[in-house]
């Protein structure tokens, strides 16, 4: 009986913790989004964050985009050849990239590169009382720290996704057309014929949502690092929370990808 009660207590405790966490993350998102629209706008810090989140991610996006396109070209060519449909290679590569792989993979790359950095940076600011110091100086941390990051995330992710898509399409072209000998004209004309505005719109909406999601999860995890379970204060607390943030971001991206696809299709 006592064991049973202990189990229920633990379950209740866990449920309360997660409901609390969800609640504070929701409030965090609300305050941050509101602060984005409150003047005076943080233009210079936003540009700086676009550089950190966006520009510094370009190399990894180019690299992964090219190889994703190349492997799509390789796999697509061999699969389509079985049906004698090599001419559709261009549209297969482009549609996979624009609708699905571009937004998802670009978001996962940005999570690994910039999301972890954001969580660690804000987490360290929290444990070294820098966030308390801001509040004591009557400076709103949401406006001062979060607003530029949210803006930068929402601006950078669609652009990075576009770069990812274009590099991927070129990667598919190099492998499919130049190495495996698919028809060059068919590669681009099938793409031109089959890719519609809805496909680009879907990719754009996804990347926009993922941008918001990455900054939201990484920043709020760092901001509330002192309330995290099994971590708490200290360098270890920040490192555990950063890992959790990256895992949560990645899972959330894949989960939201499914829901967004089902809504937008």
């Amino acid at each position, binding site marked *: 009986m006592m064991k049973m009660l202990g189990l229920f207590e633990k379950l209740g405790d866990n449920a309360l913790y997660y409901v609390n966490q969800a609640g504070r993350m929701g409030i965090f998102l609300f305050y941050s989004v509101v602060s984005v629209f409150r003047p005076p706008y943080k233009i210079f810090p936003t540009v700086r964050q676009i550089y950190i989140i966006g520009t510094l991610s370009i190399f990894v996006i180019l690299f992964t985009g090219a190889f994703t396109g190349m492997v799509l070209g390789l796999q697509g060519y061999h699969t389509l050849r079985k049906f004698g449909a090599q001419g559709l290679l261009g549209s297969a590569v482009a549609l996979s990239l624009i609708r699905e792989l571009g937004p998802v993979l670009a978001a996962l790359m940005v999570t690994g590169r910039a999301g972890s950095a954001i969580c660690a940076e804000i987490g360290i600011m929290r444990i070294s*009382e820098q966030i*308390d*110091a801001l*509040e*004591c*100086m*009557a400076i709103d941390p949401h406006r001062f720290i979060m607003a530029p990051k949210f803006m930068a995330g929402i601006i950078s992710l669609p652009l990075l996704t576009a770069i990812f898509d274009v590099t991927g399409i070129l990667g598919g072209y190099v492998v499919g057309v130049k190495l495996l000998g698919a028809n060059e004209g068919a590669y681009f004309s099938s793409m031109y014929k089959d890719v519609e505005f809805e496909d680009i719109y879907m990719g754009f909406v996804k990347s926009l949502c993922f941008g918001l999601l990455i900054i939201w999860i990484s920043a709020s995890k760092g901001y509330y690092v002192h309330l995290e379970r099994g971590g708490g204060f200290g360098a270890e607390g920040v490192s555990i929370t950063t890992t959790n943030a990256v895992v949560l971001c990645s899972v959330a991206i894949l989960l939201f990808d499914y829901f967004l696809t089902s809504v937008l299709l």
Partner: protein
Amino acid sequence: MNAQPVVRLIDVWKSFDSQPILKGVNLSLMEGKTTVIVGASGQGKTLIIKHILGLIRPDSGKVLFYGKEINSVSKKELMEIRMNFGVLFQNAALFDSMTVFDNVALPLRERTKKSGEEIKKTVHEKLVMMDLEGSDDKYPAQLSGGMRKRVGLARALVLEPRIIFFDEPTSGLDVAKSNEIYRVFFRTQQKLGYTAVIVSHDVPKILKLADYVALLHDGVIHGCLTPEEFQLSQEPLIREYVETTMGPLYSSETEEEL
């Protein structure tokens, strides 16, 4: 003219994980005066400061700033109240990715409409006051502990607040550096006339700066007395604290001879 209380804590209780830390704290901070809160480590001295700053909400009780309850005001009003506060954190809490100049200039840039030139002038004034000329472009990691505290103090003073909180301003510093901080503190308070709250272990030295001394023991404030009254108090807990911190190092003559 009698000083009036700037901040009043009335029966403030606070627990963490069902362990009570503050058990009904009553304290008044008088305008223009220096109140020193002493007590053993882990008693919740910093917690009192965090309650006054509105960073932590009490489980029960009131924190009043000029009669206005800090915990029932809107976020905007709390921001306005905080404009009156300056804080020197225990670890200085400087923004480590900003230079000394940017750290001190930040409150001016964010909270005032001063021009770049005016900000530059004010920041330099404060840096000179803290003997920090020529350190503008350094980052906090390149500074010594004492310098970091002085930058923290410059930042706390830059908006010329009415009340300044010092959380263990000399912890981790040697005697010379501690004296330096005290001198700076004395000089700036003479000049700016702010109300000060100091949390410190540095007894008896800190008593020289105090107008009032409050002892926090077991979650309750015992007496908020002048330093003389504090040292002569017959209340057992204060007596014991004074004897422990200011009495002989050894507990008996035999121990001393060993």
